[in-house]
């Protein structure tokens, strides 16, 4: 590991997080640092995270606990990490973000929806700056479901974040003028549902 990496203090703070939350924290942190905004900006910094499947591997580990040990002996840590907004909670608490935060789920276009919402919040001045991102995690159970139904999909994992703003200093990488999306992934998941039906 690079001893000089700037996000090293985060590693200790998120050591108990699952991989989904860790990926999201690092991506969000990097976007904030890259923006050059100072710490004061975090007071009103908004945070919008989109995900299709959320922390499904952690959910299945929690189901393992129920099956292995019974209803009364499950891990509260696993449960608290299995909720979809756990990643957002880690980002906001580790980056000390105090603006509005929201996690959304959409099977087809979660990042697109997150960007649309960011635009509306910026237009309303809910925040001057918003971290917008998406995260997905690989899991063998979800791969089983999707590979049988939509083998052309390559299920990978990762996270990406942008810092967006209407302010002049946000010109670093350019502008988002028009938001459209291609229905490729939409077809994939709609296809998954219809193929599952056909296989019965």
């Amino acid at each position, binding site marked *: 590991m690079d001893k000089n990496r700037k996000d090293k203090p985060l590693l200790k703070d998120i050591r108990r997080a699952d991989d989904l939350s860790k990926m999201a924290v690092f991506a969000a942190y990097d976007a904030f640092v890259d923006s050059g905004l100072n710490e004061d900006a975090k007071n009103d910094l908004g945070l919008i995270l989109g995900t299709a499947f959320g922390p499904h591997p952690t959910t299945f580990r929690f189901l393992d606990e*129920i099956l292995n040990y019974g*209803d009364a002996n499950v891990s509260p840590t696993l449960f608290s990490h299995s909720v979809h907004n756990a990643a957002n909670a*880690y980002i906001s608490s580790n980056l*000390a973000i105090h603006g509005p935060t929201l996690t959304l789920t959409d099977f087809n276009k979660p990042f697109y929806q997150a960007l649309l919402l960011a635009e509306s919040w910026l237009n309303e001045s*809910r925040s001057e700056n918003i971290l917008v991102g998406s995260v997905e995690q690989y899991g063998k159970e979800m791969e089983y479901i999707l590979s049988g139904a939509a083998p052309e999909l390559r299920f990978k994992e990762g996270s990406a974040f942008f810092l967006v703003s209407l302010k002049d200093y946000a010109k670093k990488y350019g502008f988002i003028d028009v938001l459209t999306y291609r229905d490729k992934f939409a077809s994939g998941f709609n296809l998954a549902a219809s193929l599952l039906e056909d296989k019965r």
Partner: protein
Amino acid sequence: MPENIAITGLGAISACGNNAEESLESFALGRRNAGKVTLFKTELPYSVFEVKNFLGKDTAAMRTLNLAFQALEEAIRDANLEDLSEYRVGICLGTTVASQLNDMDFYKSYREKGSAPLDAAKRFLNSNLAQAVAGFLKIKTKFCFTVVNACSSGTDAIGVGLSWLRNDYCDIVIAGGADELNRVPFDGFVSLGVVSRSLCLPFDRERSGLNLGEGAGIVILEKESSALRRGRKPDLFLKGYGSAADGYHLTAPHPEGRGLDKALKIALSEAGIKPSEVAFVNAHGTATKDNDRVEGRVLKKVFGPELKFLSTKGFTGHTLGAAGGLEAVFSALALRQGWIPKSIGFSEEDNEIGIAPVRQKTEIKGSYAVSTSLAFGGNNSALVISNN
């Protein structure tokens, strides 16, 4: 001056009633429909608030969807909006359970055999709440997603609806939340040590935790001009929304309620009102030690010790993603009816909080209500609703 956003339809289903009228009856009578779990097998003896006498339209769909469809149909009838085809419609709904593939039979088979019947997987892939409602109504819209902000999901979904309308993305937004009682979050909340062994006592000195519940609360939001054009004179309005993160801890609220304080101030500022103009607050009031202490202190600080407030979770249990939707509906109904029920379950003031909810059915004077939500993960949200 931004256009008024009207609330033209209300729909609610929970343990206290399968529609708005039944809910008001339960409030008036002080009826708590709690009991042991019947929806799934469990070794845990905690009381819950299940919706009674309810199967749902689509027996193949998740219970959460059926609860949502029930509240949705009531809201659409209430709004007199049977035909949505001529409007730009947005759909934003909150949930927790419907976003997770936590079917025990599916997973048990998969982990034992490496394979499983895919019915549960299909149900899951068809169960994104907002997308399912869009399909149910045969609406095509790009403004459609599900909020998964834990306990503030319903409130935040309504806030998103407000944003969409103010940005002129939509003419009408269907917003709120739905969640079913499910074994997985039931076990999870018990494991966190926040579930009471007896009926919950929101804000009470002897409170010992929450009871889980289920339901759906949906509002139809519409630009006032749109409502008037179709001959509907609205009597309820959504005036403000505020949201702010504690940025403090994964599960516990900030000890001084920093995020809730900020969310309330934003919502009141958007509504253009002072705290003294608020007739009552429908608090999050889960009956956990931490939530009620933090929330109660913030309410006292922002609104003063004479504030009229209550928690309706004594009637519904904590319905997770549905809570914000249900409590928005209950707040709107209270403004319309002119009274709030007693904060059921409360009898003794907690000196650590320093403020007490209403102990009996109370007439309200004033035009504004506030509904608050504090979420797992530290998000805090507030809505301001008006009958003016």
